[in-house]
């Protein structure tokens, strides 16, 4: 397994290079540059700005400069946030996104798997229908509707929680965003878990286990759960990445200084270095999570061995 892990990490390097290169070219090919705005800067100012950010160099030279910085762990200076480096910006936003997205992901797995099992074992009962209804509602109501509704209820009417903002990891500012992300994720995980467990419960080895007279608890926990979790693990990877790096609507609704906001502002402002830096970060996260998912497969399914 260790050699497999090492191979996967090494094979991620060319992937990263391709991602960075394609993204680099796409960014520079997009019309409008970092200094195009309502007010057109004069030719003199544009020349000064381009010189400051090395945009006056040929593209390949800029690219090599960027890669050189990257190898030294330097993601460059931001265009949009002129007083900060991309490293500063990521270092400030990542812990916030990780805690909001990470906690929400953890809660979603526990609640989603629990609800899924509960519904699957009582298939087509009132409880099942209720769980499915909740799940469908979570998927059907977009977060930009659910979020403001939560604010109106808990912040404006009841005044229990703040309507948004962020104060150094204070719990009361984290509750609503985590709740919103959890509701959305639970609906996905719950539905996948339910479907998968129902399928597993109908398979032959479960029938054998039952025939041996094992109690339902043992049948589910020891025999059915592991194989039923495989599809859940598959959706968890992308779900975790999007909860951490692309929770833009949650961040906007609750005015959180997370990664999603940086990505959108970066792209909208043609902040080449910021966008590239975040792409690097997301690629690393994706590669890592995919690896973890694959390792989890091996643990869950004895047929899979690396």
């Amino acid at each position, binding site marked *: 397994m260790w050699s497999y892990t090492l191979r996967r990490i090494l094979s991620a390097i060319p992937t990263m290079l391709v991602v960075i290169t394609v993204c680099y070219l796409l960014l520079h090919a*997009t*019309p*409008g*540059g970092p*200094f*195009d*705005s*309502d*007010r*057109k*800067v*004069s*030719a*003199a*100012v544009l*020349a*000064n*700005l381009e*010189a*400051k950010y090395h945009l006056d160099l040929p593209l390949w030279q800029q690219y090599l400069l960027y890669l050189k910085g990257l190898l030294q762990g330097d993601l460059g200076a931001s265009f*949009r*946030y*002129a*007083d*900060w480096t991309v490293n*500063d*910006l990521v270092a*400030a*936003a990542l812990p916030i996104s990780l805690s909001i997205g990470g906690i929400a992901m953890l809660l979603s797995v526990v609640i989603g798997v629990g609800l899924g099992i509960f519904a699957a074992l009582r298939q087509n009962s009132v409880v099942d229908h209720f769980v499915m209804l909740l799940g469908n509602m979570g998927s059907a109501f977009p977060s930009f509707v659910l979020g*403001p509704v939560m*604010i*109106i209820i808990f*912040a*404006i009417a009841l*005044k229990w929680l*703040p*309507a*948004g*903002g*962020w104060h150094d990891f204070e719990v009361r500012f984290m509750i609503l965003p985590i709740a919103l992300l959890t509701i959305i994720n639970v609906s996905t995980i719950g539905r996948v878990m339910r479907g998968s467990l129902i399928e597993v419960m109908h398979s032959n080895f479960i029938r054998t286990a039952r025939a041996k007279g094992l109690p339902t608890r043992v049948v589910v926990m020891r025999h059915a759960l592991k194989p039923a979790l495989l599809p859940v693990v598959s959706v968890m990877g992308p779900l975790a990445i999007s909860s951490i790096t692309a929770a833009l609507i949650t961040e*906007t*609704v*609750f*005015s959180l*200084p997370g990664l999603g*906001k*940086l990505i959108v*502002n970066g792209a*909208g*402002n*043609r902040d080449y270095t910021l966008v590239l830096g975040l792409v690097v970060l997301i690629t690393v996260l994706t590669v890592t999570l995919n690896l973890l998912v694959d390792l989890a497969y091996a643990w869950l399914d004895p047929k899979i061995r690396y």
Partner: protein
Amino acid sequence: MQLRIELTAIAALTLALTGASLAADLPPGTQFHASQTFVRSNGSEPESMDPAVAETVPANQILRDLFEGLTATDTAGKTVPGVAESWKQTNPTTWVFKLRTNAKFSNGAPVTADDFVYGIRRFVDPKTASPYATTFGVFLLNGLEVAQGKKPTSEVGVKALDKFTLEIKTKDPVAFLPELVANTQLGPVHKATIEKWGKDWVKPGNMVGNGAFVLKDWQVNNRIVVEKNLQYWDAANVHLTKVTYLPIEDQFADIKLWESGETDYVYQMPPGVFDKYKAQYPKELRNQAIIGLRYYDYQTKDPVFKDVRVRKALSMVIDREILSKRVTADGQPPAYSLIVTGVVGADPTPYEWATWPMDKRVAEAKKLLEQAGVKPGTKYSFAYNTSEYHKKMAVFVASEWKTKLGINMETETMEFKVLAKKRHDGAFQLARNGWLADYNDATTFLALVRCDSDQNTNFYCNREAEALIQKGSQSTDAAKRKELLTQASKMIMDDYPIIPLVQYSLPRLIKSYVGGYSELNPQDHYRSKDFYIIKH
């Protein structure tokens, strides 16, 4: 000789300002709240806290608290003494500013004329790459040449005559120089601090400023906290002890934070909710017109818009009253002129047809189109950046043209940066545009339609009007200058290079316990110095 007499009069008018207390006039009987803290929504994250590099409104709002120029803008929008306690124009292109001797930086060092010289040289230095270097620099003697790298920074027209006397030389007579130098771009910065910290001099703990507040905390996309600067020369008249700026981009989130009591001050209301909130919060909803214009650009190079009759016909049938009251519906007044209400240096020149009944306007427009050979069914393309606001306006204008003239407007929506690029390149037929004044003078608006101006995206040029503007700019007689610029503006607008639509306004919710806000500040230049919290 005559010139000298005029100059004496100008000098007499412009000085005579003393260093008495200049903070907000408190209404009699004002009782202060025990806690003087203020939470102010500020639209978006500032791009920089370096006064030389700052460009946007949100950045400049905070910088006006952290730094102070020779002059400042009070809550009613008036130019008042800042570090300079008086000034006079000694000849058409030379101004002398007398600095107060008790002005200090936040580290206790005195603010001297040399700090202004350093600040201004640094601002126009190509190495600083300030986006405003040429916008403001153009007024200073050699400012443009320095920003272009053609002359050394020492050549820019600013000189310390002694420790507390500063001389500024301008290229042409600049009547509004005292107002212009209220911008912190042209203010003092602390050289030793910048040399010590480099780029990081703007970070909390490092920054040394000379404003009424000092930078305490800065978390990107989260908050900027400033606290009262005890070294500030007028600290006795600064009431707030702490101001928190929040970069809230979502306008609905902004309102919700205000309603839940997290903030005291909404940056700007979203469109379409003005009436609702006016009914709900009649005392808290404040609205003021500011000197800015929403308009559409014609691409005058494009053959379809070569004919002024076409440009005129399309402009005159748009019902700005309905646009203002029903479509944008956020208290923005209709506009019929390039120069909007409140601008100094030229008068608005509304079109004669603005007061005509719509039937008559439509009949005239049809006649003009017929003369120009434009048939109903003709198509024009219109470019705007994706936004609910601009879409609403575009749909309205398209329907006005379709129903009244049978003209089709094909709308093309795009990302903001793409539109900006298209506009700069002139690659459009019609495009949405907007302008907020950089300084309160007619020339900032005339830049949109002048020959060879960077801000002119309609590529219109009228040499006759240009000559009038040049002549006006050279004049030291304010009345004469105003007459010439008004005349030029009318001449240009009669050629219809743009379609003025509505004047910007700033509808915002402010808690009733916030004192010091006026609705008279035409550029939204509110310093926290002028605010206070009333007992509640």
